[in-house]
Every structure is written in C-alpha cells, then in structure tokens.
C-alpha cells in the first residue's frame, strides 16, 4: 500500500470521526455552549414547582423564549427559587410579567409560562418576577375533590 493512499485514508477517517462527533453535538444534542452568552436571567419564587426540571422550556404565548436554569430553595421563605434564562432578544418583558408553571398536555412535561403585564419598565438581568402561580398538583386536586364530595 502506498504511503500517500494510507495517509489519505487516515485523514478521511479522522475527518469522518470528527464530523460524526460534531453531528452528535449539534444535531443530536442541543449544544448549550453556543447559547450561553445569549441569555439574561431573572428569578421567580413559587410555592411549589411540581415536577419542573432544569432545562425545561420557558414559553411566552406558546413560543419558547428560554429555559429553566437552576431550581433551589429560599432559606427564609421556604419557597422554591427558579432562575429563568431568557434569550437576550426578548429584553422587553414588562416588570409586572407573571410566571406560571403549566403542564404540556394532561400528563406531559412541565414548563414555565410567562404572561406579560402592562408596565413600561422592562425586566433586567437579575430581576425578580413577583407574580407567580405554582404548579398545579393533579393528585392534590383529585384528593380535594374527593374530600369535598365526601363532605356533602
């Protein structure tokens, strides 16, 4: 086998392997590295986040505009603190925007839905969303319904 042919074959092999890796990263995964600079973060406190997970979508009017960054607990109020990473191009959300945790379909994934208010001032990086609505716990509602039925 000639050296040149071998070198060509090896070159193609390495390029093919790297292309496969690139495809896995870009097409199969969602490559957060590229987008990390495109977000600004706001936080919101919820009484209960249900089964909301990090990386869950943040929706405005049904369109994805960001994702859930971190979910933690406020040590003073014992409420859940959710950081929302919102794409920089949507930087004109009013400060009185409200956030709610909703469910896609009846038993689907949970996501954060934003409902813009009417203020002229806009949310900035690090701001807090004051008006929130916790996740609806289906089993809680069912048990409340059963108890109220039993009461009658």
């Amino acid at each position, binding site marked *: 086998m000639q*050296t040149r042919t071998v070198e060509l074959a090896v070159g193609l092999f390495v390029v093919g392997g790297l292309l*496969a*890796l690139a495809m896995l990263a870009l097409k199969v995964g969602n490559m957060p590295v590229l987008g990390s600079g495109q977000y600004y973060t706001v936080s919101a406190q919820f009484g209960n986040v249900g089964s909301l997970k990090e990386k869950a979508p943040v929706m405005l009017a049904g369109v994805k505009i960001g994702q859930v960054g971190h979910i933690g607990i406020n040590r003073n109020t014992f409420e859940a603190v959710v950081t929302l990473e919102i794409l920089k191009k949507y930087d004109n959300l009013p400060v009185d925007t409200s956030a709610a945790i909703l469910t896609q379909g009846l038993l689907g994934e949970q996501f954060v839905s934003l409902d813009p208010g009417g203020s002229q001032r806009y949310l900035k990086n690090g701001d807090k969303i004051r008006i929130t609505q916790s996740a609806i716990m289906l089993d809680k509602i069912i048990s409340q319904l059963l108890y109220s039925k039993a009461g009658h």
Partner: protein
Amino acid sequence: MDQDRGVVGHIRRVGRYTLDGVARLGRAVVFFARLVPGFSVVVTRLSLVVQQIYMTGVLTLVIVVVSGAFVGMILALQGYNTLVRYDAQSSLGLLVALSLVRELGPVLTALLFAGRAGSALTAEIGLMKATEQLAGMEMMAVDPLKRVVAPRFLAGWVAVPLLAAIFSAVGILAAYVVAVSDLGLDGGVFWAQMQSGVSVTNDIMGGAIKSVVFGLVISWIAVFEGYDARPTSEGVSRATTRTVVSSSLAVLGLDFIMTAFMLRGL
C-alpha cells in the same frame, strides 16, 4: 507434577494462579510505564502512527459502520414496538439517541475493536517476538517499544473514540430512516424530541469519555499480551485469545463503574 495431587495440590494450584495473575498485572503496569517515553514517536515519526491508524482504525471502519446501521435499525424497531403501547412513539428518536450515545456506541465499538483490531495487534507483536524480530531491533539499538509498540498503542487509543462517534452517528441515521420510511413517524418530531432530551455535557461527553477509556484499555491489553506472549506459535495463539477475553471483560466492567459514577452525577 507429584506435588500437584490431592487437596494440597489444589490449594497450591489456586495459589499459583492467583500469584501469576497478580504478577501479570504488575508486569502490565511496568510495561505501560516503560511505554510512556515511547509516545514521543508522535513527534519524531508521525508516519508510523498514521500507518497504524490505517491498520487499526480505517480497516475496522467497515464492520463498525455496518454494525452501527443494524443496531440503529434494530433499536428503532424494538423501541417503537414498546413505545407504541404507551402511545409514546414520538420519543423514539430520544430513546435511540440516548441508548446509542451513552451506552451502545462506546461499548459495542470497543467489543468490535477488541475482536477485529486488538487480536491482530497481539498476534502481530507476539509473532514479531516469536521470530525474534524484536530482539533483532534491540541488537541494532532500535527500541522496539518506541518503534513497534508505541505507534500501535497510540493508534488504537485514537481510533476507538472516533469509531464510537461514527458508530453512534450511523446508528441514529439508520434509525431515522427506519422510523420515517418504515414506521411512518414524523421526521421533525424525531429530531426535535432527540434535541430536547440529549444533553451535550452529560450524555455526549459521557459517551466520549467512556470510549477514550475503552480505547486506552483495549490497546494497552493488546500490545501487552503480544509483548508478553510466550515466543511459540501456541503462546501467540493463547495471547490472542487472552486479549479478546480480557479486553471484553475489562470494557464491560469499566462500563459498569463509569455508568454508575455518571448517573449519580459524580
């Protein structure tokens, strides 16, 4: 031997095998330490490494691509069959991608590589030793570890992660073809579900780390067994068998350990 009869003989034998095994492990570690200075071959004679990447990587490509395609298609059919019972067939892309990227890609590639290229490495080096080519090199003041073993080891180490990435990519594409043309799923949903569920940092990097470790371990076992083989035709044949058996077991064992660490978030 007379000493090996009876109960005492059995105990002796167990002890001897254990000591042999521990000594072999020690020799393998010492061998690796002696091999490391030979890595400079990448700088001094890159063409040797390129030649070996051709032998181990490029020639293994066919079996990896074909296996990857079949595994992807099988995953699509089996996954669909299960998911459709819960009306969740839209998650098929995610299922296939996660199975391939996290587990099957690295592991199956490693097993195929051990059988296709690892055995060949051992046989080649073992035969060089049996025909006293290695001793001949030493006579000419050429270090066989640097001239023969290091390029083969490095080539194997480089080839496995690349092959694993190709395996996963081909598998996902094959699954896509089956899902869209045969099972009638929507192509856009297939990719969208996949992208929403596969994380680059956890899943893809995790799979890549696994295949790098597998490449290191298989190449190490293969060149060590060849170098350590008894210089007879029987010795070479035994060494080749041992390479395939030990590297397959090592891959599966390490895979369990790494998966346990990764799923617990380290």
